[in-house]
């Protein structure tokens, strides 16, 4: 399922909050690591979800080995800023002066796009310079922002600076990597629900317009399976109709004093409706996007186990 990511060193994973973006990014990284690739997973939020998900300590701005072949790092924007400035300023003393000064600090905190730029600069730097080289760097993009805005920052910044000066040049280099589907991949995580599906289709269009490139993969998380074998469907429908649970079964389960049999049928009817809805939205995604991979709902309670199960699923059918 991951064949088209095989030769992509940079993999950007995006998705709205609540769809399991970090879980899927972790699973994707683990799946690639399980194939013997050397993988680094990068977080760009102050709050580290990945280390929690993958069961490691806080990986703030330090590389942490999460398991065989898999490393994680949580890039903080302040540390990234210092690291990036150090490369563009003549001496450490000046870097200190710039970062320590209240006014310039304020400038960097509020100046548009600086945060995004330094993060992308650091990520690209890791892919260019670290040895042994990473086969894949999986970037868990921030959930709150918008992927296209984030990934367009180098291009925008380069434009704002009219391609003058070292930062503008670097921004141009980063943009060249992001805009080139041979050098980087963009993976969108969504749920099989109306709004996430619409947003993912919109995202694919925006990527074409803003970056003139496509989306490499849409991962549909937590797809509900049919609760029984497909040839029992008609039988079950008759059963559900007789028990009168087809209209809003969720509310039947929320009510007290409903007898066990009716609750049981209502519960399975609800699960069937979840599955039916998922199929409908999956159909829309498949119609509109080329590469869609479905990830099943995993009935595990522990996040670490969920990630491993999903990673295993991503590697399924591979010799």
């Amino acid at each position: 399922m991951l064949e088209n990511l095989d030769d992509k060193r940079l993999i950007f994973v995006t998705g709205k909050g609540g769809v399991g973006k970090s879980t899927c990014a972790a699973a994707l990284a683990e799946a690639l690591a399980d194939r013997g690739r050397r993988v680094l997973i990068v977080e760009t939020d102050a709050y580290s979800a990945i280390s929690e998900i993958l069961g490691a300590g806080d990986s703030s701005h330090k590389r942490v080995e999460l398991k065989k072949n898999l490393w994680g790092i949580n890039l903080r924007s302040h540390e990234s800023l210092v690291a990036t400035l150090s490369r563009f300023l003549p001496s450490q003393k000046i870097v200190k002066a710039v970062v320590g000064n209240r006014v310039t600090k304020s400038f960097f905190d509020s100046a548009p796009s600086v945060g995004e730029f330094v993060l992308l600069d650091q990520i690209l730097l890791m892919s260019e310079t670290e040895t042994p080289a990473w086969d894949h760097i999986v970037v868990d993009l921030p959930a709150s922002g918008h992927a296209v805005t984030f990934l367009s920052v180098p291009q925008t910044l380069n434009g704002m600076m009219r391609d003058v000066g070292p930062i503008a040049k670097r921004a141009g280099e980063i943009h060249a990597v992001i805009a080139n589907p041979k050098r980087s991949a963009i993976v969108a995580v969504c749920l099989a629900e109306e709004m996430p599906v619409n947003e993912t289709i919109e995202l694919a269009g925006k990527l074409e317009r803003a970056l003139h490139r496509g989306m490499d993969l849409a991962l549909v998380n937590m797809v509900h399976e049919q609760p029984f074998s497909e040839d029992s469907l008609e039988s079950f429908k008759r059963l559900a109709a007789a028990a009168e649970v087809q209209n809003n079964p969720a509310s039947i389960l929320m009510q007290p004093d409903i007898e066990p049999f009716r609750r049981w049928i209502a519960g399975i009817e609800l699960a069937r409706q979840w599955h039916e809805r998922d199929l409908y939205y999956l159909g829309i995604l498949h119609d509109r996007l080329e590469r869609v991979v479905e990830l099943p709902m995993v009935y595990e309670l522990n996040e670490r186990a969920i990630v491993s199960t999903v990673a295993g699923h991503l590697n399924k059918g591979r010799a």
Partner: protein
Amino acid sequence: MTLPLTSVVDTGRLIVCAGPGGVGKTTSSAALGLEAAVRGRKVIVLTIDPARRLANSLGLETLTNEPQRISMDAIPGAKGELWAMMLDQQQTLDDLVAKYAPDKGALARSKKNNIYRLLSSTLAGMQEYMALDKLHDLYTGGYFDLVVLDTPPTKNALDFLSTPGRARQFFDDRVMKWFIPSKSASRGLFSRVFDPGSMVTSLLGKIFGDVFVTDLVDFFDTLSFLQEALRTRGEMIDFILRDDGTHFVVITSAESRRIKEAVFFHEKLGELQQKAAAFVLNRVIPNFDEADLDGLDPLKVKKAFKAAGVDDYAQLETAMRAHYSELARLSAHNREIIERFAKQVGKDRLCTVPLFGDDVHDLSQLRLLASYLVDRL
């Protein structure tokens, strides 16, 4: 039991919905707005989420920067009015510049500025800034009885409340404090630092290019006349947010990481001597209960399957039991998380909304959602 938001929709003047993204925040905001409108109030729902979710929820193609009336014809007995609008940040900022600029050419000049053109709406804090500005207009405009504000899905959403002096401080501290020459002093910190030839200016010029620095100086200069206007509004917003008619609702899901974020909002509000009127837990797996399976009467099961014309039902029954059991495990886990959360914030303020079998995308589904938040008349 009385649901905690019942009196809020009947008498509140402002409902601020906060919480992490992707948990149905916008949909819940719309449901609360609709419920209040059905009960006879004039309501506007203001959303800032650029994903245009509210429009989807209300079955509208697009929302504009102007309030749009939403038809409630499909709901018999609906007495009030429901309006909605989505914040167009760029438009809001343009309007502000046009309104407060000392001369008529200011907007045109701004639009030529590279930075204004490309980034004014994505500047740190600008989203909250513009939302509060619109909120101010809608709240003080006098037409609406109730404003429902759907905040951006970030932890910063409550930043404007977070310091003494709150909103006013927010306007001072955020985007422009250091860049805008103060009115009293002819030479503010900004102009001192960005004096042509100053060390910082030439340094920044070396890194970012001179053109960029010049554009940036112009950009902040353009916005400087907004400061006074925004400051006055900030004071007003401070006042609004502390009013008795203002209620905070934290919306989240029962997933453990989302709950953590909700606790964060809860604590943040506590620090501000504010209190959430309710915590809405969306997308909860309803009460599947393992005990239901033990309580099944085999004779009754057999009869029901036979009556439905399923003679050979062993395989179907086994699959149904197994699936129910898996969901019961998940549901029990969910309930544990919810109970722990209830101990932290108080059970009486919790609203639990199940994960429905269908998406919420029309008025009747919004009303179904609302029935888990507000007692029906």
